[in-house]
């Protein structure tokens, strides 16, 4: 395998009982590459993400990260390997504030000999939160506010700022702009452009054709749990992609699939 491959999956499959949510996905992502995953609701996009990040255990198949075969026991392990994810469900704790959420599961602490009772370094975490929000241009009136008092868009901004705070080997965003206003969407897109400039690879799941065409190098289309197309942006356009999404067309190499 050539060593500029960030992520590779082979025959990645997930069945929920009788539901074949993901079937035989072969996927590749190269260094510095930004790839979009598109597909209708229920096509298996989020399921694909959950198998890579260890949120769920796959039914079958293999995953390599930077050439190393991996099978993450949980999202923490994925994160320790440099995979940062904005989940579609956001994964925020409503009763906690912004710094708490940004650092949840990887708190900065001191007196670490106290084990689970080690002390939180609130000051440093708050400062880093402010820095991260400034860097990403995310606007939140009061970071000490609990998440439950925030608008859907602000919540999403927090979830995105969380991934952007920590340098990663691979960033995955599952519909990061689904609930955002025009300005916030532009901000998130800017964050994504920054990642591109810094050469950080990205998998972007989105239903927004304009956004996808603007931002990524390649589009992978899912339909009913299977990959049905792998299109370089230069070789395609919106109408073409829609045809693959709806099933009017299927990529030559995927004939016989859904």
């Amino acid at each position: 395998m050539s060593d500029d491959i960030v992520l590779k999956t082979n025959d990645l499959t997930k069945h929920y009982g009788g539901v074949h949510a993901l079937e035989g996905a072969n996927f590749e992502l190269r260094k510095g590459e930004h790839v979009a995953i598109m597909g209708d609701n229920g096509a298996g996009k989020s399921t694909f993400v959950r198998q890579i990040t260890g949120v769920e255990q796959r039914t079958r198949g293999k995953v390599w990260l930077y050439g190393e075969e991996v099978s993450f026991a949980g999202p923490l392990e994925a994160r320790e390997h440099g995979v940062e994810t904005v989940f579609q469900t956001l994964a925020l704790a409503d009763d906690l504030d912004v710094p708490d959420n940004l650092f949840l599961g990887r708190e900065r602490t001191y007196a670490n000999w106290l084990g689970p009772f080690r002390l939180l370094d609130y000051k440093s975490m708050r400062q880093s939160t402010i820095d991260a929000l400034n860097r990403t241009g995310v606007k939140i009136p009061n970071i000490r506010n609990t998440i439950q008092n925030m608008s859907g868009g602000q919540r999403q901004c927090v979830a995105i700022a969380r991934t952007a705070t920590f340098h990663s080997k691979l960033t995955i965003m599952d519909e990061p702009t689904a609930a955002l206003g025009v300005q916030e969407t532009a901000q998130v897109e800017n964050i994504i452009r920054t990642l591109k400039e810094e050469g950080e690879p990205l998998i972007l799941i989105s239903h927004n054709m304009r956004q996808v065409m603007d931002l990524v190098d390649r589009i992978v289309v899912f339909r009913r749990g299977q990959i049905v197309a792998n299109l370089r942006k230069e070789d395609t356009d919106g109408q073409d992609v829609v045809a693959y999404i709806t099933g009017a067309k299927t990529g030559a190499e995927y004939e016989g699939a859904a």
Partner: protein
Amino acid sequence: MTDTSHGTGGLTFDNSKRSWPNEMNILLALIIIVVIFEILGQVLPYMNNQSFLFDTRDRFDTIFNEARLQIIILQVAIIGIIALGVTQVIITAGIDLSSGPLVAATAMIAMSFAQTELVNGNPNPKAIFGTWAMDLPVIVPVVIGLMFGAFIGAVNGTFVAYFRIPPFIATLGMFLICRGIALWWSSGRPVSFPTESYKFLGSGMMPVVWFLGLAVIFHIILKYTVYGKHTYAIGSNEEAARMSGINVRRHKVMVYMIASMLAAFAGVVLSAKASTAQAGMGEFYELFAIAMAVIGGISLTGGRGSIIGTVLGAMVLGVIRSGFTFVKLDGSYQLMAMGGIIIAAVILDQYRQRNRA
């Protein structure tokens, strides 16, 4: 204070307008209840203008009626220790019903290792072990009691976290099991005659010292440690906590263990205070402990609540008890009033949630 108003997105945020902490409401309620009893002392014809809280006899050296203050807190201290634990369980969106019977079972077990050899020069008539278990250092019964509590808590936590039994059911089962253990331990007979050092653990104001000391420790733990943060995170959004890499199951086991160890310690203190252990001890303690947390503003759906709130909730129950005794209304009225207060607390909290700033 660092400036948190960065990038306000056109919104203004007034830093001086910190949100009114929930605990202030309970403190306010506490003061109102005290004032009501104070007024009742003045207006009720049979009360002869007695004061509830102030010292009316020797107004020279003290302002407050210290005896009453002590009783208010002493009578809730032991249940309060349990409440510190159940608060943590409820924050994770769980519940622990097993604490009352666990108090009894631990009292029996710990007391059995705290026996004196001679009672008034005669051999101890109630000892259930031989002389090897007599006059042991006080640390032995305490550690055995805490270990028993840790074991029960680990079982509770394992059933809740690993076998996904609803906490209500798992701890209801443990409720019966612990009461059974308490009865079985000495075939229903009480265990009495502890060593002096054991008695000291529950003597005088010691229960209050334990309660407030542990309250301070767990306040710090919940607010300033990773354990506390994860406890809130799990109750707030268990899925998010898991995705953030928190070992949710292990953490829950730890929370149930800590709660049961606190209940077990309450059993030690209670038996030391009473100088006896009986299988029927701690009846309804689990419910009163939960009531303290609820009055203290905890959310039974998890994620919200605090040790300060629970301590204030305990004080509210203590004041109501003392107050009813003060105005010479007996226990039946106390129970009715407490029931009313608990329901009122939840209604107020829901109202507050809907109108949150």
